[in-house]
């Protein structure tokens, strides 16, 4: 008999087994973020040429581990928690096969430890992308494979839960939009993991000597089938969290279920094709393949992101206006709860993802202007806007929400929590903006020494490049402080926060269920169908403020796009 707990504050239902799995995955994610953050500090202090902290070999080791712990382990552990929330909690359903859920967790944990162990042994500093013919230790690949198998199992537990919910009729009508977003994420995850298996399994055999040769170009194409798609899992997941938080904080309802779902459908169809933007300057593949996959297909996916970027704040605006914040274009936004870290994290995520991540992403996805910044520090700057201020901040926001609701602990240091999104988001924005600038001046990514000391073929960067890297790194240090504040608050709350439920002890914070009396055998009430939003047909005029914001984004994009083409022309001395 499935047992459920009802959250007394929010009315959410937690299936006992799902609850434990969500907690375990979220805690593992936080540990990965801690490791990644410490390494990020070491990396950024090395790229700050005036500090130049680590020696070369340790720099590349730290950079490899930073990329993998942050982008793979932190994000995907958290996404497993998101999948279980979106299926079991939001659909009020029992989780399908909790046993396989634990297999997911254990495999991913073992895999993560194994790969870290390989990296810190020192012979696997191959960067996150581990391009062949660079070779890492066998357990580097094996760890990643185990991790991926675990994640795939998690996806099928998710799909299984959808089936269970449908069969047991736990909801009426269609699944909620947030769950639909998670479906999108899980679909992309299946392709991601399949690509990963196709390339990492042979690479593993190559590392133990069973296969003699891995073609470098083949590796790049298939690897990016995983490497890029996994970023699209993040996008689908964090957009779902935007919708979730808009609903939780404002009671906002999607402006149009149809439009939002169609936008997700565009993700399912086209988002993954943009993998090809990583191959834009590779020889061996045709221009047709590059142009089809990056331009036409990618623009449809970008369109979908713009729809979400419009409907999420639009739904907030509509909800706020309904509450009477109707003055002018922006009263609804000014009077938003800016000191609630759940909201502020989410809103910073939305704005930076669109303005910094989105615009630079489209620029980099354009073959010609990509050439200006290819393989420069511009690239990490871009994806810190997407995966750090975008995805990571959305995940942080929802974590603040989950501490009382899921873990039944009161959040400690509420004053610091109010500031945390601004410290983290502000610091990372500085890092992003200045490294974008440095990249435009040609500063390489993954490069230990800007001075080229003793190199046969040196290069003198302009003094400005050093200044930009220095300021960017300073922002990175602030970002690390903000990240540390996040971990201090969350982990501190799990350990020392006031218990909102007497049985929420230490072990309960790590996945052990609460006291038996918290759960009942009673089935949760059926989730009612989302009421049709009469009169809200997604017209921009119900949300004029959002419409203006969208125009600002468009103008910023056009100006920035123009500047890049202009710059390209001047590089080739065509004007």
């Amino acid at each position, binding site marked *: 008999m499935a047992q459920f707990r009802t959250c007394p504050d929010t009315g959410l239902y937690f299936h006992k087994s799902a609850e434990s799995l969500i907690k375990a995955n979220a805690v593992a994610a936080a540990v990965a973020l801690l490791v990644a953050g410490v390494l990020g500090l070491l990396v950024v202090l090395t790229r700050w040429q005036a500090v130049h902290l680590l020696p070369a070999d340790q720099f590349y080791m730290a950079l490899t581990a930073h990329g993998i712990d942050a982008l793979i382990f932190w994000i995907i552990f958290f996404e497993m928690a998101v999948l279980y929330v979106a299926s079991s909690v939001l659909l009020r359903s029992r989780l399908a096969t909790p046993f396989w859920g634990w297999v997911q967790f254990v495999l991913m944990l073992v895999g993560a430890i194994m790969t870290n162990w390989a990296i810190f042994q020192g012979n696997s500093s191959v960067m996150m992308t581990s391009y062949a013919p660079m070779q890492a230790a066998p357990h580097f690949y094996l760890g990643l494979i185990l991790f991926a198998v675990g994640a795939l199992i998690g996806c099928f537990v998710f*799909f299984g839960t*959808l089936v269970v919910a449908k069969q047991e009729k736990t909801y*009426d*009508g*269609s*699944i909620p939009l947030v769950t*639909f977003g998670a*479906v*999108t994420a*899980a*679909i*992309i995850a*299946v*392709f991601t993991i*399949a*690509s990963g298996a*196709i390339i990492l399994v042979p690479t593993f055999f190559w590392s133990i000597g069973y296969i003699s040769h891995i*073609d470098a*170009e*083949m590796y790049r*194409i*298939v690897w990016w*089938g995983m490497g890029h*798609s996994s970023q699209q899992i993040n996008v689908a997941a964090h957009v779902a969290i935007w919708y979730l938080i808009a609903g939780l904080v404002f009671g906002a309802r999607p402006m149009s279920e149809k439009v939002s*779902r*169609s936008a997700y*459908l565009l993700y*399912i*169809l*086209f988002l*993954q*094709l943009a*993998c*090809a933007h990583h*191959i834009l300057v590779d020889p*061996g*593949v*045709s221009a047709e*393949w590059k142009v*089809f*996959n990056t331009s036409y*297909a990618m623009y449809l996916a970008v369109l979908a992101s713009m729809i979400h970027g419009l409907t999420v704040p639009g739904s907030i605006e509509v909800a706020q206006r309904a509450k009477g914040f109707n003055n002018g274009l922006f009263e609804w936004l000014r009077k938003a709860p800016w000191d609630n870290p759940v909201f502020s994290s989410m809103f910073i995520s939305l704005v930076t993802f669109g303005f910094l991540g989105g615009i630079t992403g489209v620029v980099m996805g354009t073959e010609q202007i990509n050439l200006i910044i290819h393989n420069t520090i511009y690239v990490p700057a871009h994806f810190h806007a997407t995966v750090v201020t975008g995805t990571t901040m959305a995940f942080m926001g929802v974590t603040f929400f989950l501490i009382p609701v899921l873990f039944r602990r009161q959040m400690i240091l509420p004053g610091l929590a109010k500031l945390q999104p601004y410290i983290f988001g502000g610091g990372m924005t500085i890092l992003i903006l200045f490294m974008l600038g440095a990249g435009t001046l040609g500063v390489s990514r993954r490069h230990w020494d800007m001075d080229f000391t003793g190199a046969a073929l040196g290069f003198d960067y302009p003094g400005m490049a050093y200044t930009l890297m220095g300021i960017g790194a300073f922002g990175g240090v602030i970002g690390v402080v903000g990240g540390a504040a996040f971990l201090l608050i969350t982990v501190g709350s799990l350990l020392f926060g006031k218990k909102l439920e007497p049985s929420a002890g230490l072990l309960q914070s790590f996945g052990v269920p609460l006291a038996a009396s918290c759960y009942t055998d009673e089935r949760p*009430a*059926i989730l*009612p*169908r989302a*009421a*049709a939003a*009469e009169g809200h047909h997604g017209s921009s005029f119900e949300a004029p403020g959002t419409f203006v914001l969208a125009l600002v984004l468009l103008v910023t994009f056009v100006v920035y796009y123009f500047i890049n083409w202009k710059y390209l022309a001047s590089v080739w001395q065509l004007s």
Partner: protein
Amino acid sequence: MKETSDKPEKDQEEKIPAMQTLIDNPFLLLFIGVAMPTVFYLIWGIMEIVTIPVAP
């Protein structure tokens, strides 16, 4: 628990539009979502690599 749609009863019984049957079927979506990139990105890309002539 009758918080269902505001629409009158008979509207709800109307034929479900094709688009909605697609969106309500996660496994069909899964198929499409895996097939698209497999065909256009992986297979097409790999075909181009394997048809590069080997240097003499």
